[in-house]
């Protein structure tokens, strides 16, 4: 998948500065063309990492493509053989598979959007000097530093549990003996998942956006303020445009990680009641049902879907990282 999307981005982006001019002067005089041996010398340090990553990421995916065209279930080893497109047909007609696609999009979009908005609001709150600024920042980071499985367990048992979870405990504390005691995970599994994910990813968004806010040129903001611009106006026409690349960056990175989330779905709902996302669905099809062919077809579908998103994402990424002035 990758080579197509990267070359595309390369063509679209066109870096503002030509690195060859800026850098090659170190060893060879500028403008002299790289000789063949020189360009090989340049390549050698790159090759171990590049070959390693190609072997470790592209080869397995090639294997997935091959298996996706095979009839292969580990429970029925004798029936292994070529299956044509039947695995794909099954993935597209399977209600669970379609639901997994929908759930993945829903979880990713809602988690990233809510975390982004909350993260921005909190970053703005923390971007002023006040007593305990450092302590509040440290407290805000904590959720991101809890191991995801541990965080999922914490939410499922210590917070959501209908009998002794903190949420229902607080309800009892505030509303008394007859307080409602909802079964959070049972009655609203998707919001419960998203809430636990938002708790972990808001600090991530907040940290990147706060760094963005603190790199804002303050003298310009100051000038605008002196000229009588309102706080709202300063925010919409100065702060937000400056933050744009940081917003794009945190959205891109957040999406990369949340779309692959397995830990929370596995721990909190175990994919039950319509919460299985694609990673969990594939895990289940392959690990529990041992249906290698169908799991691989679902994997290929996931990658094709990701590829479409990645084309836009990489283009965005290109713009972001170029604007960083490298």
């Amino acid at each position, binding site marked *: 998948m990758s080579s197509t999307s990267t070359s595309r981005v*390369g063509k679209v982006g066109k870096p503002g500065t030509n690195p060859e001019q800026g850098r090659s002067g170190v060893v060879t005089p500028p403008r002299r063309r790289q000789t063949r041996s020189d360009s090989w010398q340049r390549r050698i340090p790159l090759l171990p990492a590049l070959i390693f990553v190609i072997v470790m990421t592209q080869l397995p995916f090639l294997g997935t493509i091959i298996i996706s065209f095979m009839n292969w279930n580990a429970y029925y080893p004798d029936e292994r053989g070529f299956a044509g497109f039947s695995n794909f047909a099954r993935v597209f007609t399977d209600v669970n598979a379609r639901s997994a696609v929908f759930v993945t999009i829903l979880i990713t979009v809602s988690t990233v959007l809510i975390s982004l908005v909350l993260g921005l609001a909190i970053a703005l709150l923390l971007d002023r000097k006040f007593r305990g600024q450092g302590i509040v920042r440290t407290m805000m980071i904590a959720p991101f530093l809890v191991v995801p499985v541990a965080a999922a367990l914490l939410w499922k*048992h210590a917070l959501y549990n209908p009998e002794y979870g903190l949420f229902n405990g607080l309800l009892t504390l505030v509303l008394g003996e007859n307080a409602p005691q909802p079964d959070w995970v049972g009655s609203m599994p998707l919001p419960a998942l998203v809430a636990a994910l938002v708790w972990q990813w808001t600090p991530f968004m907040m940290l*990147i956006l706060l760094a963005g806010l603190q790199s804002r040129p303050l003298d310009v903001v100051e000038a605008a303020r002196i000229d009588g611009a309102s706080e709202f106006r300063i925010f919409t026409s100065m702060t937000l445009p400056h933050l744009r690349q940081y917003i794009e960056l945190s959205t891109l990175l957040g999406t990369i990680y949340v779309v692959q989330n397995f830990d929370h779905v596995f721990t909190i709902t175990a994919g039950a009641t319509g919460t299985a996302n694609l990673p969990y669905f594939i895990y289940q099809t392959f690990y529990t049902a041992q249906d290698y062919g169908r799991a691989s077809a679902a*994997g290929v579908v996931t990658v094709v879907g*990701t590829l479409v998103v990645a084309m836009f994402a990489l283009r965005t990424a290109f713009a972001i990282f170029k604007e960083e002035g490298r």
Partner: protein
Amino acid sequence: MSTSASTRGDGTTHATQTQKVGGRTFVQTKPPRRGMLLTILAWVVGILFFFPVLWMVLVSFRAETDAASNPPVLFAPVSLEGYRTFFAAGPWPPLLNSMTASVVSTILVIALAFPAAYALSIRPVKKWTDVLFFFLSTKMLPIVAGILPIYLFAQATNLLDNIWLLIILYTSMNMPIAVWMLQSFLAEVPVEMLEAAQVDGAGLLTTLRQVVAPVVMPGIASAALICFIFSWNELLLARVLTSTVASTAPVFLTGFVTSQGLFLAKVCAASFVVSLPVLAAGFAAQDKLVQGLSMGAVK
């Protein structure tokens, strides 16, 4: 300029100030209460986000009967019951496996990523941006899309339940992040200094040590921190590819939870112990964390 202090600073002390700027007089119109309210709001939000972590620690030090109280109490008698049960369940091999996998894969990542980043910044290959984006694009390839062939390969070569398989996989999982970060730091090495070193006849090693290292060391620290955290946290690969010998702390955590009886204190104790290395490393190096998370784009 202290007009800025009134809005960016603590409103309670500066808000009523009158300021002369460029011959004009400005009277701050902000009520002093606003800064105070924002400060309180920031504290409330911080405590809200931190509270589940604090709750985890508090509950972990309780007897099971106190841990499951409803309505909840903030302080209960301290008990080490949860920790005793956790450490009696044999968590050391998985914790050691996690430490081995995270530390060794992080070292491998840096060892491979540093030369690659060098070839993408200081002495760049042709089309270095394409190579850089190829690395990023592999992060968009979901792990599940390749896990089955890896599993079958490991099965055929007897590598299942082997910590080295995880080490290799974590190395490739974190390689793009490290390459990006180190590239962005190496690109900051001033060309003039490299040229000066060249003119002075410094060899590659001397140049690396005296010109490159000071600039890129913080980058290596950030990359290492973030690679360590992501390896330590990883569950899917470890769960599928290990069983008893090489299982890691997150896998142990999922197996530790049983649905029988009271277990809240145990779960919280286990979650806290498993998260402790990441919490400690992350708190100790907060600014490195930000650089690492943004893949070096934010310095």
